[in-house]
């Protein structure tokens, strides 16, 4: 097992190299660069733009820029953001916790609801509850998250029950520790629900389908024929088999934790990373985009590894070597 994990970590290096090389190349394929926006400002001369291009190192051929960036990464230096002129690492760490708080709350919410509801609707297929839930999940799948988010803000503004965005109140500093916690929670509920509901629908469908599939398997029929109690059949035999593919999905979910909430963050004015990355992509703030892509890639690889280990512990048929 330990050998296997070590092996995976060594494999990570060429993989990360490939991912970053491709991302860098794709960023460079886009026309123009960070300074193109300034070209149409009558008050900025082309000489000034050239001077800035030189200072940012953007005048060199891109493979050299890439190698320089890579050299920095090896020394844990993510480079400077063009827009903010502060280290990329500073910008990312400021926001990463907020994003993780929002996305993991939403993910936990979605998974905790999807598992029991999925199992329930599979067991009581075609019941009224199943049909209502089916309608609900298809509705949440087809409505884009940003629209749900807009509805959420609208709801907050109209009822006044929730703040219309942000992560803390204006008077946060003056609150007692307990009130601070409440304040944070109060701001978290709506965006987490919007994001959670957005993910819930498809998860629920997957749980339900997998469960139904397993129920039809011959070995389940055998178990039932042997006279096993239906609870035992459901939880000992169907459930572990049915959630196998979900564990792989969990791996991807971990990768989405960092970048998965950009639109919700924008609409709820949530001080997260997704917003920062989106702005960076729009303005071609190269190293900021690369820094966050790099972190996303690492999370994706780690998430997959975690999923594989989980699978091996749950499913006796799978052995890691």
């Amino acid at each position: 097992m330990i050998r296997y994990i070590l092996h995976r970590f060594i494999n990570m290096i060429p993989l990360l190299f490939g991912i970053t090389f491709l991302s860098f190349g794709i960023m460079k394929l886009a026309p123009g660069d960070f300074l193109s926006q300034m070209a149409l400002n009558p008050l900025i001369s082309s000489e000034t733009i050239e001077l800035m291009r030189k200072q940012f190192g953007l005048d060199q051929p891109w493979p050299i820029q890439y190698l320089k960036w890579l050299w920095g990464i090896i020394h844990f230096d993510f480079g400077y953001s063009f827009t903010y002129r502060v280290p990329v690492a500073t910008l990312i760490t400021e926001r990463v916790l907020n994003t993780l708080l929002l996305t993991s709350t939403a993910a936990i919410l979605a998974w905790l609801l999807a598992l029991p509801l999925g199992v329930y609707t599979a067991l009581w297929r075609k019941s009224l509850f199943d049909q209502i839930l089916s309608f609900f999940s298809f509705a949440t799948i087809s409505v884009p998250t940003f629209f749900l988010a807009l509805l959420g803000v609208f709801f907050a503004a109209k009822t006044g029950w929730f703040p219309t965005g942000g992560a803390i109140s204006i008077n946060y500093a003056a609150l007692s520790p307990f009130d601070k916690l409440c304040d944070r929670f109060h701001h978290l509920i709506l965006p987490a629900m919007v994001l959670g509901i957005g993910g819930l629908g498809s998860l629920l469908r997957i749980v339900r389908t997998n469960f139904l599939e397993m129920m039809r398997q011959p070995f389940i029929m055998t178990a039932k024929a042997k006279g096993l109690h239906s609870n035992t059949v459901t939880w000992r035999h169907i459930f572990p088999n049915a959630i196998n593919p979900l564990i792989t999905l969990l791996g991807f979910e971990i990768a989405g934790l960092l970048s998965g909430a950009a639109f919700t963050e924008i609409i709820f004015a949530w001080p997260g990373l997704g917003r920062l990355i989106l702005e960076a992509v729009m303005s071609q703030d190269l190293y900021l985009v690369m820094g966050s892509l790099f972190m996303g890639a690492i999370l994706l690889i780690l998430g997959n590894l975690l999923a594989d280990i989980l699978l091996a512990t749950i499913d006796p048929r799978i052995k890691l070597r």
Partner: protein
Amino acid sequence: MLNLTSIFIISGRLETIKYFIFIISLIFLLGCPKKEKIPVLKGSETPTYGGSFVLDSISDPKSFNPVIAKETSTTMITDFLFEGLTQINPFTTDMEPRLARSWEYSPDGKIWTFHLRENVKWFDGRQFTADDVVFTYNDLYYNPDIPTSARDILTIDGKRIKVEKVDTYTVRFIMPKPFAPLLFALGMEIMPKHILEPMVKAKTFNSAWGVNTPPDKITGTGPFMISEYIPSQRVVLKRNPNYWRTDKTGNGLPYLDSIVILIVPDQNSSLLKFQAGETDMISIRGEDYAVIKPTEAKGNFTIYNTGPTFSTTFLFFNQNPKAIPQYKLRWFTNKKFRQAIAHSVDKETIINNVMAGLAFPQDSALTPASKFFYNPDIRKYEYNLDKAKSLLQEAGFKNKGGRLYDSEGHHVEFTLFTNSENNQRVNIGNIIKSDLDKLGIKVNFVPIQFNTMVTKLDATFDWEAIIIGLTGGVEPHNGRNVWHSSGQLHMWNPRQAKPVTTWEAEIDRLFEDGATELDKEKRKKIYHRWQEIAAEELPVIYTVTPAALYAVRNKFGGIKPTSLAGVIPYIEEVYLKK
């Protein structure tokens, strides 16, 4: 949920979002009234101290260093913290003293002497003196290691202005030749020498005062100072108790205790936040007007229409002989052809359908917002397809079977670009296309990515017609890069070694004269003449300029509509009514 790979296609999705939002706003808009009178201010109250003013900004400040960072979400904050020697009077658009108390210039106009205020202190209590001014210009703005666009404004014919100290409160600016835009240029922020000099010497100035700097280290002279910055959430500014300005009765300014700027990246959320009473002021988009107007009384706020802005949107043709087929060049360089196109731009429809009724037709190269230099008596191009047809006929074009041909038998057809990120421009392009269709001109309208368009304009020149916009300002000289034939933004035919046409030669001359003429009225005449030529020759065909709308809670005093500074001419004079 979005995953990692989606980051690459986000820009595409944003379009979809805008589309959805557009549809939703449309639903809200149905049956709502348009264009109402501007409300006039109620009687004056006596100002009181205290209170907080809550605004929002679409994006984080990028830095607290106004020398380096010049984009709007940054200057929105730094404008509260730093001051220049001069400032623009928001009502008259004249230049008025700020950190400088007064000035005079030598008869030849080359030596300007500025007398500084003696009661100005930096946030840390140090006295503001001539050393700070000399340092700011010589070691920051003119420092070749510091990338600042400010240098371009301060450079006259490639030469810099000599800045020297006369005594503690007097500085002298010595110029290679008289330079009328000087007072405007000196509106640039003055920075504290005692704090920044070590950073300049250590070559760390370019990343100095970034967003990760502790707020109490940022030192200016302005009415407010930073008390707190929480990334992506808010900036809180507190009153500068030592601010130099006093009101009429000698009481210290500013009145407000604090200003809170919430960072709200989505404009719909921003509107909802205002409606929920969480912010005190908001700038309203035309399409939101109908939504917010009915709640004016209930929300206890007033909507102000500050009139035309400096923002322009225009269509222009490629007149660069190197880049397009000769016969097309002959159309585009034909004045009558351009005038005919100008007569087929339906400004009324654009205003009503694209700008939600909140815009003004524009004919002059300056918008009415630039008050002093704006010339209202120029040739105007109202929407008139018959006039357009007869102009085309005069220019030798013939209409056969609904298609327009030139005298050599070429069908008149061109490609029109605009940047796809800007919905308004895309909509304006569609309206123009359908009207030109009626003249028998085929327009292939292709919205493209902004950076691709810039490359075409700036380097490859392979375009035929483009719709874009520029934002102007009070000082007409700032348009030199666009209007002087040698300018890189002289977009229809940039970087000419010497002017190709006689009218371009005359405009060049006018811009050179305008920069050296110190007499205001004579200057006005010069720039009026330029607007006349521009309207006659039409290198760019203007469409409409949007109105600016603001909503402010009624509990605040000191709110006055101006075309230059929105509804807050002087932030230090804003107060909470009791």
